[in-house]
């Protein structure tokens, strides 16, 4: 779903620039989801993320002749989405108290995991229950921004470290550190709550939270 196809993309771009404009629909379709989630994680508002996603796609179309092919098409598209999102945040920032760079990688924090035994199986079936999806979404929304962005691109959109780094304008090392911390925070938040969704098993360990 997320795999890019550079040959398909460069053929599309060549044809669009030669006048077959309608092909742009097919070119952008595989990127839509990632554009939306990157913007949603920045803007934290569905309607604004959707509006920004539309603006991003229009900008991609208008600037298509500038794409040089030295990065993946989706990476380039996501950097445009990121600029769109950050531009909107900056505009709104005068009305807000939390600064964009409120948190840095150097900051120390408590990333100790929740020590729980007994939640061993992935309750994928439980996702059919709306409640579980809601718990997961809330947990991600509750992460500090620098961790949220990375977890959305790496674990939700399943982009690789390099692509994530390029899309967010940070180093690959920072992607790894932030992803580790994001997962640790999510594990600590979610493990105690998701345990109830795990299928019942015969093994019971003598550990509490």
């Amino acid at each position: 779903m997320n795999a890019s196809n550079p040959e398909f993309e460069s053929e599309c771009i060549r044809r669009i620039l030669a006048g077959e404009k309608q092909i742009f629909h097919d070119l952008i379709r595989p990127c839509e989801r990632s554009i939306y989630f990157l913007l949603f994680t920045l803007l934290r508002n569905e309607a604004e993320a959707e509006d920004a996603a539309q603006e991003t796609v229009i900008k991609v179309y208008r600037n298509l002749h500038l794409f040089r092919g030295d990065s993946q098409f989706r990476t380039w598209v996501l950097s445009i989405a990121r600029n769109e999102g950050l531009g909107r945040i900056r505009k709104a920032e005068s009305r807000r108290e939390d600064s964009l760079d409120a948190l840095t990688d150097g900051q120390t924090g408590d990333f100790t995991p929740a020590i729980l035994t007994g939640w061993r199986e992935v309750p994928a079936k439980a996702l059919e229950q709306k409640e579980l999806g809601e718990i997961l979404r809330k947990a991600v929304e509750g992460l500090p921004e620098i961790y949220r962005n990375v977890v959305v691109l790496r674990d939700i959109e399943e982009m690789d470290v390099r692509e994530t780094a390029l899309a967010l304008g940070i180093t690959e090392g920072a992607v790894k550190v932030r992803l580790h911390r994001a997962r640790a925070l999510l594990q600590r938040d979610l493990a105690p709550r998701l345990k109830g969704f795990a299928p019942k098993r015969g093994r019971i360990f003598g550990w509490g939270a």
Partner: protein
Amino acid sequence: MRIDCKHVWEHISAYIDGEVDAELRSEIDRHLETCEICSAVLDSTRNVVVLMADSRVFEVPAGFSARLHERLDEELARSG
């Protein structure tokens, strides 16, 4: 060298992504064999990663794609 729990937690994300070198991986594996706490932390972290990737958890709003392509059509028509 025997590694402790804290050391294992520090590398748990890289371990899940297969990004630790062979030596560290085998040290962590050895630790996990005997440490119920760390193997539970590993399992639950991995569960979180797997659940996050499930497309049912994070969905675009209904009609998102249709509205996007409609807007795009207007732009394409305008761009002559």
